[in-house]
């Protein structure tokens, strides 16, 4: 009750502060214009499909590459030191460099090489950049999952005669991946938002389209339209994960006698 009351008080105060600000009428006109919102929405929604497409394509590659990277990093013994080192350098580098820089370097640099076999599409290079960056993040998530599976599980698998690879595939990874579904989803929400950065290269995705609209009408309501679309995609994704986690728990706890 107290929480609800204090929340209401704070928000009412905030709303009053904003709406009574000297510049509010102007801000209201340029950011919250309902007519403008309706007018710009169809085109931004169309452009948003490009975001969804980039997100879907990138996600598939990220899930696979990140898993490979995480497995490389978990290889034991001195023989695999170069691979481990490479995986560590990769993760450190791409987590350290701002995403926008990777997008800029690849998006402007790669096509400029003018090689026959290199695609010129900025969207293509935008996706490549996102895959490179997010693979680094997601591999760390996988690695945390792999390390959270107790070594006794691998020992039990190996003691049955399973090879190291089989133990990883059938025993360690299935448990590891289940445990990291929530943080994985978190990274994917980040990825979904970062598809907007590809607009920087000139690909007309939702953010770029709303920029174009804003420039044409001197009205920023189109940004709001883009924001609404991004949020609308995030929420189902979050609910989906909740559902997946709940289902897994249910299946394990109420498995019935056949």
């Amino acid at each position: 009750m107290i929480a609800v009351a204090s929340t209401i008080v704070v928000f009412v105060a905030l709303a009053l502060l904003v709406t009574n600000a000297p510049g509010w009428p102007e801000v209201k006109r340029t950011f919250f214009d309902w007519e403008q919102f309706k007018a710009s929405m169809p085109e931004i929604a169309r452009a948003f499909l490009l975001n969804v497409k980039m997100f879907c394509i990138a996600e598939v590659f990220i899930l696979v590459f990140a898993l490979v990277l995480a497995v490389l990093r978990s290889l034991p013994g001195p023989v695999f030191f170069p691979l481990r080192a490479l995986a560590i350098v990769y993760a450190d580098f791409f987590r350290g460099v701002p995403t926008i820089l990777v997008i800029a370097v690849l998006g402007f640099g790669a096509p400029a090489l003018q090689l026959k076999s290199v695609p010129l599409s900025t969207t293509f290079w935008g996706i490549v950049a996102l895959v490179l960056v997010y693979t680094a993040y997601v591999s760390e998530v996988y690695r945390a999952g792999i390390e959270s599976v107790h070594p006794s599980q691998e020992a039990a698998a190996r003691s049955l005669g399973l090879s190291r690879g089989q133990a990883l595939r059938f025993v360690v990874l299935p448990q590891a991946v289940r445990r990291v579904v929530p943080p994985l989803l978190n990274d994917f929400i980040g990825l979904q938002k970062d598809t907007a950065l590809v607009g920087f290269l000139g690909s007309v995705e939702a953010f770029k389209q709303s920029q174009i609209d804003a420039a044409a009408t001197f009205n920023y309501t189109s940004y709001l339209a883009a924001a609404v679309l991004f949020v609308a995609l995030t929420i189902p994704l979050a609910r989906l994960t909740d559902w997946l986690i709940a289902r897994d728990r249910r299946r394990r706890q109420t498995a019935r006698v056949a």
Partner: protein
Amino acid sequence: MNALELHGVHKSFGSHEVLRGIDLDVAEHEVVCLIGASGSGKSTLLRCVNVLEPIDAGRIVVGGDEVTARGANVNRVRRRIGIVFQAFNLFPHMTVLRNVTLGPTRVLGHSRGEAEADARELLERFGLAARADEYPDRLSGGQQQRVAIVRALAMQPELMLLDEVTSALDPELVAEVLQVIRELAAGGMTMVIATHEMSFARDIADRVCFLDDGVILEQGPPKRILTAPEEPRTQQFLQRIIEAGRM
């Protein structure tokens, strides 16, 4: 031919020498119980036999094949040895049935149908048929440990290693697991059993070995070791067990 031979096995973890020269022969169909205080090296010894831990010196021979030889195929060796752990170590993301069929399907190359039929038969034999499609965390500790034993048996091992398999169980669940082991012994299974259950060791073992500080200090028929040990360390250990009311 002996089912298992250990010759001068040494094993250290860092600067701590856990096994300091173990010699042990186990004949086929023999049941050997390892007793001794925690930290005396019982578990390490079993893990070394299954090559879960590499040894520093010595030789381990299973059914005539040296498993510690350079280039020995450890996966091939482990197929022939079943090991059951104190903490069960069932795979929590698989049903009981899948736990049991994983080895036969992936390692022995049995078809799924064949493996499942065999698994159900084994589960039936140990009173677990009704649990086949449940996940391990729905089972009692005793049931889980019996499943772990069935999982090892499904590989049709020549040798079973049991590592304090009742230590993690509530007292009232110990008996059902010990009963399973008795059945295995009666069926002629060769076993090396690390245990704190002295009366069980007396019943089931052909030979009892007392481990102390990384060596087998004394061994012999259970009656003699458990009632009239020669070594003062063995006497001391058994005295403490009696005082704890565990014998």
